[in-house]
């Protein structure tokens, strides 16, 4: 069963009349994680924002985007908004700009949860506290009373994951969530995302330019270059036996770095 079926998705900029995404078609299986891999400017974020219909107003899109059987392109803005957050949740790259800098994290979270669920404040806090403790955030109440600039990138990412835990969406779109983090935070956030999937059984679309991260979390992989999908399939087969030259290039450059490091660590041991 496919939770997302995209057919002939085209996204173009009306100002320059340039196509950003050319005729993309892909599916995401229920309960699986699809990774979209590519370099900057390949159209991966634009594709996912098109799925959420959150692109800039000068970008138009066409094609069929079936989410649980409903074509998202045909829905009205009001119906789309009802689905966003509750069924389609997005985790963004920069935690600092994902939250309103002028109000505390707790305010932002309360607003989001109250839009979709009709819980009272105490119930809300209880659920948030449970979720934040499960993503290894100590003193959840303290954190909810802080401003975004007082928290580190890793913590903000974990708060977004906790919010996703409480919202219980059917599809999570994670847009390069670990790119802006350093080594330890990256590892921990990735662990949290894997656990999130196991616990909730939700489907995920994971965008990244790092194949190492993709290997840890993804089941299927889609490689994009200049707005076109050049290769897609099962993660193991794409990474170990890539058919397209571009995929081979991405894999070889990533391996160069890893292999050099592994060789260093194994020398003489």
């Amino acid at each position, binding site marked *: 069963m496919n939770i997302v079926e995209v057919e002939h998705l085209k996204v173009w900029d009306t100002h320059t009349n340039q196509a950003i995404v050319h005729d993309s078609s892909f599916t995401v299986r229920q309960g699986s994680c699809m990774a979209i891999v590519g*370099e900057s400017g390949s159209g991966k974020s634009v594709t996912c924002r098109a799925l959420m219909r959150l692109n800039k107003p000068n970008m138009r899109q066409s094609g069929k985007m079936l989410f649980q059987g409903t074509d998202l392109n045909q829905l009205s803005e009001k119906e789309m908004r009802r689905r966003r957050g509750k069924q389609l949740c997005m985790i963004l790259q920069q935690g600092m700009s994902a939250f309103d800098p002028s109000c505390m994290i707790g305010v932002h979270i309360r607003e989001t949860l109250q839009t979709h669920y009709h819980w009272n404040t105490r119930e809300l806090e209880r659920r948030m506290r449970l979720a934040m403790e499960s993503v290894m955030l100590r003193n959840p109440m303290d954190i909810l009373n802080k401003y975004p600039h007082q928290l580190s*990138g890793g913590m903000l990412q974990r708060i977004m994951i906790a919010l996703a835990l409480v919202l219980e969406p059917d599809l999570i779109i994670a847009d390069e969530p670990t790119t802006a983090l*350093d080594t330890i935070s990256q*590892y921990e956030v990735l662990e949290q995302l894997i656990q999130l999937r196991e616990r909730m059984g939700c489907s995920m679309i994971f965008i990244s*330019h790092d194949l*190492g991260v993709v290997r840890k979390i993804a089941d299927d992989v889609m490689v994009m270059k200049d707005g076109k999908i050049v290769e897609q399939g099962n993660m193991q087969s794409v990474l170990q036996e890539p058919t397209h030259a571009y995929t081979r290039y991405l894999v070889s450059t990533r*391996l160069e*770095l*890893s292999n*050099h490091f592994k060789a260093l660590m194994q020398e003489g041991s």
Partner: protein
Amino acid sequence: MLTVEQVEKSYVQGGLFSKHRQQVLKKVTLECRHGECLGIIGESGSGKSTLGRLMLGLESPDRGAIRLEGKDVKDRRVRMGRISAVFQNYTSSINPFLTVQDAIMEPMKALQKSAQGQQVHAKVDMLLTQVGLDSSYRTKYPHELSGGEAQRVCIARAVSTEPQYLVLDEAVSSLDVSVQIQVLQLLRSLKSLYKMSYVFITHDIQAAAYICDRFVFFREGQIEETVSVDRLKHVQSDYAQQLLSHLISL
């Protein structure tokens, strides 16, 4: 030799009524020898970027000093032509009003006021070729360049005066992984070409391991451990071992 001698640095935070001093660097001592690439590895908030800024004379330490061949690095004449830098954010590293040629020529012009005309053009073309860009890039503006290209221009600019030391502050962290390896290879080749020494500040050990000879693990303003690249697998400190075990590789 670039030496950091017992450097301390703190910042005052807080408002009118509740100030407190945050110690960012606590008695740091290290050295970068001629021809070596020193990797400073630490997470965000560890003070490594502050150390980088102190090495470039952008701020002064509260105590201690950083010396290049015995002379304090705070004096700008000591730094001119001897130390250069490449920063993380390539979009804001080049003045958007300048073309690539103007940007690369800037440190050269400051060093030798008499360099002009054909000489400079030839030098810029040579630098562009060395970093893997062709001469059509001379007249481009920064917003027309991709991430990898912009960072290459920054590197060309930094090596234009053939400095002895190059401070690379998270120079490859903002690039796509496939571009990172190309830039690292470029840095390797330039190092042997110009016989420079690098101070490579980063949180990514894999990238650092590609070009560094020696590692300094930094945490909360202090050096946890110093290790050379061939002894990397035998790190002793808990922190370094924690970092190594958290690596994600393909």
